[in-house]
């Protein structure tokens, strides 16, 4: 009986009902604020990252230009006319065929130019790792199904 009265009294207390509504509303507001803050944070981070990407792209382009310029400058400094001029200044002179000595060097291979060394030959290479090390489980099952379990 007493408990029923307490519940009745509690339910009927209007300030409690209001507080519940206010609490729920505030909870929703806080939830939305948190989501908004999170969204703002993520957006801000993305914007900063995006700006950094733009700057890095710009830097990449600048460096590429500088690289091309330096390469051209180096080529200018090592051009045939320039190298010949420097060689003559140092007291060198062009060699005649009879002045050369030829020595056989077993196994000697003429060095590749640097420009070709920088690139990979497209000649297909044999796979270094056996297939077991690179194959996924699905690929393995697929292969077994196709080959009927035999290799």
């Amino acid at each position: 009986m007493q408990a029923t009265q307490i519940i009745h009294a509690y339910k009927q207390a209007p300030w409690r009902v209001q507080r519940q509504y206010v609490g729920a509303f505030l909870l929703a507001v806080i939830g939305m604020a948190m989501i908004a803050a999170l969204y703002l944070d993520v957006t801000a981070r993305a914007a900063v990252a995006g700006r950094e990407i733009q700057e890095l792209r710009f830097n990449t382009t600048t460096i590429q230009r500088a690289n091309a310029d330096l390469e051209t400058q180096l080529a200018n400094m090592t051009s045939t006319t320039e190298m010949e001029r420097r060689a003559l200044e140092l007291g060198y002179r062009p060699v005649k065929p009879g002045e050369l000595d030829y020595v056989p060097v077993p196994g000697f291979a003429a060095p590749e130019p640097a420009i070709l060394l920088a690139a990979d030959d497209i000649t297909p290479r044999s796979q270094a790792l056996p297939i077991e090390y690179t194959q996924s489980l699905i690929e393995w099952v697929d292969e077994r199904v196709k080959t009927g379990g035999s290799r």
Partner: protein
Amino acid sequence: MRQTYAVRSLIIVIGLVFVGLAVIVQMVRIQNSEQAKIFISQGDRYSGEFSMVYPERGEIYDRGGHLLAGNRTVYEVGVSLAEMENPEKLASVLGTYLGLTYNEVLNKLIESPESWEYVVIQDYVGAETVSSLQELMKQMEDASDDGLNGLGFKPHFQRSYPEDSLASNLLGFVTRDGRGYFGIEEKYNDLLAGNPVQVWVPRDPNKAMEIPKVPNGTTLVLTINRDLQAKVENILDEALTNYGAENGTIIVMDPRNGEILAMATTPRIDLNNYTAYFSTYDNGSQYNRAIGMAYEAGSVVKVLTMAAALDTGTVTPSTTYIDTGSIEVGGITIWNWDRQAWGQQNMTGCLQHSLNVCLAWIATQMGPQSFYGYMERFGLGHQTGIDLSGEAMGRLKVPGDSDWYNVDLGTNAFGQGVTVTPLQMMMAVSAVANDGHMVTPHVLYSMLRDGHQYNVPSQYAGSPISSATANTLNEMLAISLEQESSQALLPGYRLAGKTGTAQIPTDFGYDANHTNVSFIGWGPADDPQFMVYVWLQRPSASIWSSETAAPVFSEVAEQTVVLLNIPPDVVRLQLAVTK
């Protein structure tokens, strides 16, 4: 009282709700109005800009990795009219730094159409000038002087040729619109230029990842040996001076695979100043005479005639011919170059003394069908297929052509009445130096793209003669050079070759006073590793090839054996034994 407050509150609430709803309705209405679409499109327009991204043009290297064609940064100098504060100051400064007049710059700045936001003052300005201008801008900014406000610099690439005129005839050039003309630059323009891409560059940093990466153009590595090219060009320039020739061409090729090692012609231009083309050449065929200009080469064609005759069995090296100094072919009398009778000669003697009569007789013995069949197989009258732009075909008249006469069989046999380019001759004669296999000349050694190397394989262009014929003729030409004590010889090396002195056709018959002199030779004779073709136009010091083109060949051969590390025959054979 409470009720009054409640009514007032209700009215205020209703009012606020109404205002709120009105705001929402208005927002929705504006968002979906026709004007909104215009505003949205305007907003989109200013949210970024379309930009054409031109990839960096691929570089060109020689076979040793030396840069022959690269790129350097130049700037477009312009002024943002909206930001401009002091046009007079800008005109004064830019006029001084860019070499323009004050009025020229000022007119651009103040007389531009109102719709213009930006005006270009000068393009292709060098980095040093721009650096000086930027320094000045900084100083003025520090001094709170806004006189240069609005001035801007847009960097972009310009083609650069570090070796200036070296191999200019072979490389070609790139104009300011980015298109390649002549040579490699034109032939491989699409590969070198890459694929320009139009991209939308958003100002929103969140969309920064949407900008695609444009790959650079393909880098090319040529078969050219830069040092040999330089030497050959020097030799050619000196030859023109020494022999008073108008122009000339020298080609060095590896007869085993068709790789062009050097290709020099005159005149050449500094590729960094390509506009000199218009004042240097009368037409495009003069740009690279080695491939673009066909001429009557004269006696060097006798090599092909003899090759055909040996291959068909019409003659052997020991076949004898009684030379009386003249022969009648098609009702026309053909004379030797000295109008003398040389008596009994074997076939080596016919080549050694370059007897027109003997070779005309050989052609008549072969008959036109067989003779022209071989000339066709040697590629005369067809392009060689070299990977350079602007190749000429030459002209080989054949029976059935309206302008072919019976006498042509005789004259064609010693290289008159048939036009060839120097490169065509090299390709044809490569069969003699390469065991009967003719090679396709090429200048591209390798392509580099995205970090991968693609080597260009050598190609054979057929086998017009047998290996036995080639070796026999090779020996005959080596002997004929030795017995002639030719100026083409190089001590320590056994070489094979043939001179060619040709009269020049004009509208009124052949020019009696001027000749084209040529020489084709290769070595070492037992293992040919290089082949050289020399052509000097109208030499005044001597009209004979043996006195002009032959010594030039010797000079080229001397430089070639040094730069290609080809030891003298004795040493080479010793090294071969010890290997």
